[in-house]
């Protein structure tokens, strides 16, 4: 028995050590710095002034709150739209038709694609001299690049949302396909024989069955898009700016006081994501208890 215990401890120590020292250690040290602890410039006292500065000072408040709003808008919109597109794609593609294998492959093609490349792809397709603008010019819809709507590097975050939809729809698609596959068509046939129409079958049969998986996938996508740097860095504008980009730029600022503020921002991002995840677990646990 003692041997087994030793085996468990020895096996788990290396990966735990990596996660605890590098990941939690990094967060902890970042937190300390966000409280103003900077031995490099002889600052040892701890306070919350970096948090106050970022959120309420005249200099940064507008930047922060507009950034937070953009963050929430981009994450909600892209998660929701990606899930909806994937759901319709997965439902439609279940039937047999010519080219099904190829279509399934194309629908999952963006799954292993790095976010960075998807962001570059959005510039190539949606910018004012991109592929779509050229097509629109060719069929006479627009006469100059300026007539094409600003969809990349725009202040509403459309380009960022498009990139996340492109990328995450594939993720939702794979998850939905396997759920639908494991369900089979029995439930739907049963509902159909009981007289349910297409909408009713979708709303009362399929949706409740795929909802748990769809929802947990949404949490992953939301959390990722809330804290990721590359896509908004390439496709965003200077104002309003998404929080991860803002945190990073504060951090790179040669002024060492801005460093504390960058750390404070990154801790705020992590806190929001954490609250969301805890809320999600609380929600699913509450639902299990209710059932």
């Amino acid at each position, binding site marked *: 028995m003692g041997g*087994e*215990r030793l085996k468990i401890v020895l*096996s*788990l120590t*290396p*990966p*735990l050590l990596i*996660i605890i020292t*590098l*990941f*939690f*250690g*990094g*967060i902890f*040290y*970042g937190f*300390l710095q966000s409280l103003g602890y900077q031995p490099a410039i002889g600052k040892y006292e701890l306070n919350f002034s970096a948090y106050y500065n970022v959120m309420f000072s005249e200099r940064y408040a507008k930047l922060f709150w507009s950034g937070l709003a953009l963050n929430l808008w981009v994450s909600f919109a892209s998660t929701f739209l990606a899930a909806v597109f994937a759901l319709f*794609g997965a439902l*439609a593609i279940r*039937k047999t038709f*010519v080219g099904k294998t*190829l*279509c399934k*492959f*194309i*629908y*999952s093609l963006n*799954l*292993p694609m*790095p*976010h*960075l490349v998807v962001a*570059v*792809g959005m510039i*190539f397709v949606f910018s004012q001299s991109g*592929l779509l603008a*050229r*097509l629109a*010019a060719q069929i006479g819809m627009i006469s100059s690049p300026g007539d094409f709507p600003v969809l990349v590097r725009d202040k509403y975050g459309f380009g960022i949302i498009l990139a996340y939809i*492109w990328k*995450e729809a*594939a*993720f939702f698609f794979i*998850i*939905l*396909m*396997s*759920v639908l596959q494991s369900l089979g068509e029995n439930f739907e046939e049963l509902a159909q024989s009981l007289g349910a129409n297409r909408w009713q079958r979708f709303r009362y049969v399929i949706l409740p069955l795929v909802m748990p998986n769809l929802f947990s996938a949404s949490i992953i996508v939301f*959390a990722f898009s809330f*804290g*990721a740097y590359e896509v908004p*860095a*390439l496709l965003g504008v200077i104002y309003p700016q998404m929080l991860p980009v803002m*945190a*990073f730029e504060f951090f790179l600022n040669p002024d060492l006081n801005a460093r504390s503020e*960058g750390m404070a921002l990154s*801790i705020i*991002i*992590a806190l929001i*994501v954490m609250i969301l995840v805890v809320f999600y677990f609380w929600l699913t646990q509450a639902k299990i208890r209710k059932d």
Partner: protein
Amino acid sequence: MNNNLKRINIYSIYLGALILILPLIAFFINAFSFRWFYPQVIPKELSLQAWVRLKLIPKPGQRTFEGFLDLWASNPTVIKALVNSLTIGILVTIVSIIIALPAARVLGLLNFRFKKLIIFIMVSPTILPPIAFVLGLNINFISIGFSGSFFGVCLVHLVPIMPYVVLTMTGIFANYNPDFEHQARTLGANKTTTFFQITLPAIAPGMVVAALFAFLVSWSQYLLTFLIGAGKIMTLPLLVFSTASSGNPALTAAISIIFIFPAILILVFTSKFVSGQSGATSGFGKI
């Protein structure tokens, strides 16, 4: 009526596929046409100039086998970044599999106190954003001299990869029957033989998938490499990012094609393993 509906359905799937593949089409047009002026949809002439400028293809007239070798041996930036990305990816994947193997076995086969807490600690890097830990870690790494080193970059890549490899392999061991090992041992096989003859073949398929996706996670890492590498370690994602920011579409497209090539290869290779049920898929959220 019903037939019409079906046809619309199928056409919308084709349309969706076409839309999804538009960026890829744009990558190839950009990479193989140096002057693709607005509003041409199809470029007037094809050109390899982007590839020549990146020193991946020799100038016309030197395109012999030796010409290619000479050019690549001169170590152009793209080749350097490619070699760095590959080395870091392969190294980190091997290390993560070796570290994860015993842990996943214990987590998948045994029940013990604090198991839930340990799994919770392991998965936390998959939920919390990398920017939350890497800023603090960066300063620590500078003070102990890991910053800007190859070793430091490999170490920091382990953070997003570790949880994901441990979880995938825990799933494999949860469906694994260790009784076969006991049988082999009673028949006289030693520990090493048992591992290579019994355990490894049983877990190999799942392990290969975990390894391929671990590699992809490292391959597409931008922020961690940028901060910990401190500008000294150039990898492909860093090159794509800086070229894209400086705005030459042909060069960006050509580097991007090299960058996405392994991703597509891995998808083709593993498409039958990839399903929402497998833990492997959840790792994609991080790429």
